[in-house]
């Protein structure tokens, strides 16, 4: 065989701005095709889960297969409400940024099922190590939105005292770990947190999230290695929303295999789940959490979803992807899908949906009024008097001198 001339491969998405959106290359298996494995399923039996996709909600809007978590109608309505509240919150906060009341915002449109179903499937005292697009988890833990808004506005009620970016929340009371802007760092931390839980013979587990882009970071490899080595009680999640700012998932290695399949090389089960299917996300998360809770070790979940909005208020997706790509996304809108399921079950209708939407919008408006009454970034921001606090537990002499110099 003669050698070929070497060719450098540079991944390119199939569509770009100005082209018709196209999702034909995405293979979507029918709902209910993958059985639910036992918690101690050997990892080498998990290839179908890593390469396939767990789906529960079928095209007929009914739940099918043994992954169906069989949630009662009240729980489903609660999930729907959390998702709708998250979306209403996002829409309203984006407008605040456009009006100059905050510097920055990030929506999670299209990914609401991931956060809400996972938060509901985990226990309230499990520690979440979130990434930056998981406000829906705080919503699902019933954390007051006024509190988040005050941070977004950096007003005097901002619990983080103006020290952190608007959407990088920290809510210890909701077991929601401080979000870092450095991507992936929370992944090995969650493993360590979970190991400490096991060390103390506690019952709490940890869960962590990165985007598919961040799987390229060393922290991802460290987390999977340490989680496997010490069989840490942790649920590791990759939110594959197809984009790392402008880079399609191929730039993170998504052309060669799924992100869930990464787990198998570490001897961990990896499961890909339809991230826009509330029931499937709930069931897979519960399965992974049960594994962790019963000393069967960690699991990697790939939440296959689509980032419908821009990366952030500093981003314009029309520069790198076809307009209206979300409309052809084969897994649909998570809110619409759960709504249709509830209607199909006879537990919901268009009128109730519309009035819930109105109610939530009114609620967010009230919350916003209250938060803004305390101040916004430009108007009555929080005081810089605490600027030197919390660098260390106690103020060391050099910071005391600098605080005096700053006149604070």
């Amino acid at each position, binding site marked *: 065989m003669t050698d070929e001339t070497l060719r450098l491969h540079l991944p390119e998405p199939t569509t770009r701005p100005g082209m018709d959106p196209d999702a034909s290359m995405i293979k979507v298996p029918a709902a209910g095709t993958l059985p639910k494995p036992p918690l101690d399923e050997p990892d080498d039996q998990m290839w179908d889960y890593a390469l396939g996709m767990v789906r529960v909600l079928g095209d007929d809007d009914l739940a099918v297969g043994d992954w169906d978590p069989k949630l009662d109608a009240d729980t489903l309505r609660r999930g729907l409400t959390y998702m709708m509240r998250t979306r209403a919150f996002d829409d309203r906060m984006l407008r605040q940024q456009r009006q100059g009341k905050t510097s920055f915002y990030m929506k999670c449109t299209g990914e609401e099922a991931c956060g809400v179903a996972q938060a509901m499937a985990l226990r309230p005292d499990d520690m979440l190590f979130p990434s930056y697009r998981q406000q829906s988890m705080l919503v699902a833990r019933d954390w007051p939105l006024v509190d988040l808004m005050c941070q977004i506005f950096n007003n005097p009620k901002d619990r*983080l005292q103006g020290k952190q970016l608007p959407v990088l929340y920290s809510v210890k009371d909701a077991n929601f770990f401080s979000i870092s802007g450095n991507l992936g760092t929370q992944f090995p931390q969650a493993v360590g947190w979970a190991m400490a839980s096991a060390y103390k013979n506690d019952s709490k587990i940890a869960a962590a999230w990165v985007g598919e882009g961040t799987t390229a970071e060393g922290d991802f490899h460290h987390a999977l*290695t340490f989680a496997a080595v010490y069989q840490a009680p942790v649920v590791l999640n990759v939110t594959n929303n197809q984009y790392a700012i402008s880079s399609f998932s191929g730039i993170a290695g998504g052309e060669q295999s799924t992100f869930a399949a990464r787990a198998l090389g570490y001897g961990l089960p990896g499961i890909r789940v339809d991230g826009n299917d509330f029931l499937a996300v709930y069931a897979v998360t519960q399965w992974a959490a049960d594994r962790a809770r019963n000393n069967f070790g960690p699991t990697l979940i790939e939440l296959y979803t689509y980032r419908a909005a821009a990366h952030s208020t500093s981003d314009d997706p029309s520069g790198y992807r076809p307009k209206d790509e979300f409309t052809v996304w084969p897994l649909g809108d998570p809110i619409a899908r759960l709504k249709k399921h509830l209607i199909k079950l006879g537990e919901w209708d268009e009128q109730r949906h519309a009035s819930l939407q109105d109610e939530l919008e009114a609620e967010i408006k009230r919350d916003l009024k209250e938060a803004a009454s305390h101040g916004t970034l430009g108007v009555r921001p929080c005081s810089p008097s605490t600027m030197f*606090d919390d660098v260390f537990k106690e103020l060391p002499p050099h910071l005391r001198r600098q605080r005096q110099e700053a006149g604070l």
Partner: protein
Amino acid sequence: MSRMNMIQAINSALDNMLDRDPNVLIFGEDVGYFGGVFRCTAGLQEKYGAKRCFDTPIAEGGILGMAIGMGANGLRPVAEIQFADYIYPAFDQLVSEAARLRYRSAGEFSAPLTVRAPCGGGIYGGQTHSQSPEGIFTHVSGLKTVMPSNPYDAKGLLIAAIEDDDPVLFFEPKRIYNGPFDGYHDRALQPWTQHPMGEVPDEYYSIPLGKANILRPGSDVTVICYGTMVHVCETAVKETGIDGEIIDLRSMLPLDLDCIVASVQKTGRCVVVHEATRTSGFGAELIAEIQEHCFYHLEAPLMRVTGWDTPYPHAFEWEYFPGPKRVGEALARVMEDA
């Protein structure tokens, strides 16, 4: 009270803390069953079990990422980085995470964490087993940086570091693990067991971080140093007969500026010595502070004696190492107009 070298003193500190606090646990590459490549954790796994003292994969970023999570969940992890030269893969976890967690969460979350790392050269370790990166970390807000110069201080400072609620980098100058190296590699090393600072209580005690030690009072010139250089400076003072006041910083951050300022205002002269490279090194910070606080007391230009701004060269480490001769020359220069 026992006679201990610095390795034994560090081991004793870890032993005391494992015994006192069930939340203390120790891990790193080769620290568990084997007891560490420098033996600092020898016997601890046997005594306290693998749960309290265990081996980790070779992934410094993973080790410290895990440690931060453990610290945030109520434990007091003590991580060993096998050589300070290997700390860079963990840089992001230290700088962006350990150092920032308390601040970015306005005190909601914090991760007490002690990172032990053998540092410094003079052991034919070449450029990857000889570095002194302390100045890189003193530049980061939110980290404490400590370097002991003798077994007694090593134990007391390490216990204080483990008990501290903030992340502490604890650099161990490996050239003085076995004795107070005076800078002459061709002379026999005096073992710590024959040195007064090798007298170490077996029991728990701590030395507060941020308190310098005036090792030798003097009136001619203030000599500021830490780690191995403390002994080199002592030798240089002896050899030159210059009445140097030797300040062993013990911790760089927090810094005992009051001690430094009082001394330099008294002597009017100062030489700063460290083994680390010069440019943007911790000596630059010290000199900036001294000129700001002592300018009108100064009788001579402030001087630095440091490692050269090259990687640590394997075959030329004694040309690189700031030995007593170079320190002595600097002392003589600042005394020229006296």
